[in-house]
């Protein structure tokens, strides 16, 4: 007989029963504790969060965690929210959509947290937003820029960043369409990774330029595992397009740019998403970055008043300035805090609807600039446009945030 089928030894059975009783007692104690302490005026405001601290999204997930923790620390140093200290309750959802649903159920129903913040990435934001909506909770999220987030009809969701992917290049599109006839590029070549975010950014710009009368002469999509870009580069080069748009992440942008340089293709304008803002980018393609454009949702050098303070304190705390994930998490905190301070409450129940209604009507100043939202929770801004000018990536658009003049046409690479 295998050990698996051995009946439980009587003494073991006794131990198991005792363990069960002990566990039940603990659970009951825990419940009654909660009942006693919930809602007191001097108790801390508890914010429930589930984040992908392990698994696929663990890198950005940890960035978001640093941002949330920085927010809580700074706000507590400044006297808290509504005079109460803030406490974060962060669970690890292991980058799993099932897990994230359980986590928010537990945070809201069992732990009775006062507020919730969103997790990282569209895949986790959508299911957890549904849970938050069932409980009528305000749901502000730091990441989840893909269109499907805003197509679900959520009435409690707000995306705490300047713009969704499709709108990242809005300032650049306006600028190009406003150019006089002789200067404006006539033809555009587009190459994008088969990825909702990368495609969103590139196609947002492509469609606006096509509407404005520019010809799209190359429109390539490549799978995320593509490493050899010489054929795509050959197509772009052969078309002789005036402008090239890359819906890129990182290595694809680097490989594509080098392949274009090898073919001696010289566009007037070159715009790539994500990669150029990476600190390794300039090194990877050598000194040939001049004139490359990229949208960015956050830069540590932005002069918004709360950002100057945030970067200073964050740098003191961590020894390095915050990145975009940290900033978006911090923004989430700022947005919720603004609503809480304005409405004057932070608890489950009616208060949550008041917070939602307030955010619908009002503008919030954050580290990524002033934010407002439409009825689906889409932010109404656009990303800043950065360009490599004199070897450094600098903001060139919009004009009122400009650090350097836009170079057009771009110098040869």
């Amino acid at each position, binding site marked *: 007989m295998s050990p698996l089928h051995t009946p439980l030894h009587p003494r073991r059975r006794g131990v198991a029963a005792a363990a069960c009783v002990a566990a039940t007692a603990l659970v009951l104690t825990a419940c009654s504790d909660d009942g006693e302490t919930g809602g007191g005026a001097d108790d801390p405001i508890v914010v429930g969060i589930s984040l992908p601290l392990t698994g696929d999204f663990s890198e950005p997930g940890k960035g978001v965690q640093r941002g949330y923790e920085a927010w809580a620390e700074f706000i507590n140093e400044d006297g808290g929210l509504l005079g109460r200290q803030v406490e974060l309750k962060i669970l690890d959802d292991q980058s799993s959509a099932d897990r994230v649903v359980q986590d928010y159920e537990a945070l809201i129903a069992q732990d009775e947290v006062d507020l919730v913040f969103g997790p990282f990435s569209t895949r986790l934001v959508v299911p957890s937003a549904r849970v938050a909506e069932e409980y009528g909770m305000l749901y502000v999220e730091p990441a989840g820029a893909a269109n499907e987030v805003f197509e679900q009809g959520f009435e409690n969701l707000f995306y705490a960043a300047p713009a969704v992917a499709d709108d990242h290049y809005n300032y650049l599109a306006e600028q190009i369409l406003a150019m006089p006839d002789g200067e404006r590029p006539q033809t555009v070549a587009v190459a994008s990774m088969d990825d909702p975010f990368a495609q969103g950014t590139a196609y947002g710009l492509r469609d606006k330029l096509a509407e404005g009368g520019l010809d799209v002469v190359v429109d390539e999509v490549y799978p995320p595992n593509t490493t050899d870009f010489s054929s795509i580069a*050959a197509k772009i080069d052969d078309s002789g397009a005036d402008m090239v748009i890359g819906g890129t992440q990182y290595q694809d942008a680097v490989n594509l740019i080098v392949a274009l340089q090898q073919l001696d293709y010289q566009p007037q304008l070159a715009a790539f998403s994500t990669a150029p803002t990476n600190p390794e980018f300039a*090194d990877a393609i050598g000194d040939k970055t001049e004139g490359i454009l990229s949208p960015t949702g956050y830069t540590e050098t932005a002069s918004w008043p709360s950002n100057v303070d945030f970067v200073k304190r964050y740098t003191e705390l961590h020894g390095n300035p915050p990145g975009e994930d940290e900033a978006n998490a911090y923004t989430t905190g700022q947005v919720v805090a603004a609503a809480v301070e304005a409405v004057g409450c932070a608890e489950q129940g009616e208060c949550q609807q008041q917070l939602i209604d307030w955010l619908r009507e009002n503008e919030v100043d954050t580290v990524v600039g002033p934010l407002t939202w439409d009825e689906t929770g889409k932010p109404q801004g656009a990303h800043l446009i950065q360009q490599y000018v004199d070897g450094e990536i600098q903001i060139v658009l919009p004009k009122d945030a400009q650090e350097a003049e836009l170079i057009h046409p771009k110098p040869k690479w």
Partner: protein
Amino acid sequence: MTGTLLFQSLVLGVLLGGLYALLAAGLTLYFGVMRVVMIAHSAFLILAAYLAWFFHQQTGMDPMLSLVITVPLFFAVGVGMQRLLITRLRPATITMMSVLLTFAVALFIEGMIGFVWGGTQRRIQLPYSGDSVSFFGAQIAVVKLIAFGLAALSLAGLYLLLKHSRFGQALRATIQHREAAQLIGIHTNRVAGFGFGIGLATAAVGGTALSLDATIYPSLHWHWIGPLMAIIVVGGLGSIPGAAIAAMILGIGQSLLQVPLGTTWAQTIFYVALFATLMLRPQGFFGGRLAQRF
């Protein structure tokens, strides 16, 4: 589509095919001498690329000089791996079990690369990275030309070694009929060990060639092993000329198909060719009678 684009794609295909040919030659060699399916071949390829990058970063010298270290090193590792790991597998199930074993080795290498150098994507920046030469209207990147040259030289060296040296004859005898080779006094175990070492040395050359013109990251090897496996089946398992010819044809095919079909569909050529081979000619299209025996 213009004639220039077509010609440009053809040239790019030839350059890509050359690199595939070298790597596939190594992969098919393992199978030939040992009946081993070496999943970790492309992991060693990426490891060599990382070593070239690391060498360039530390010394500032041309990454190709790292070959002086990596080729002997990989040869030794190959011999050691054959002696210490592969020969422990039972001969009856060696093909199946080697898939598991080398899969584990691939994961180990990937993990170690990530552990030592991090998951960040790396690229070697050389003064001639973006340079190209004009060739009848097509632009050929200097780095791709060097990579192709390295591959062609190594393949030629491999060919000479196998055809015109005593060791080569012994190796080919081992590939063709192990027992018969033993009967005429060939130390097939030693020969197989050296064969494995040579296979791994091709990965060192290939990885260095790759590092000149690619952004590398630890998990990159998974993108290489699929096409390489398809190539050696199409070329006939164990047949080095077969692997080289199949690599060239599929490399050029992939490059040309990208023009009308786009990148996503062009890469399916390897698998379409694989299915077609298995249906029509399971022993492979070029040489290779080995597959019939399994």
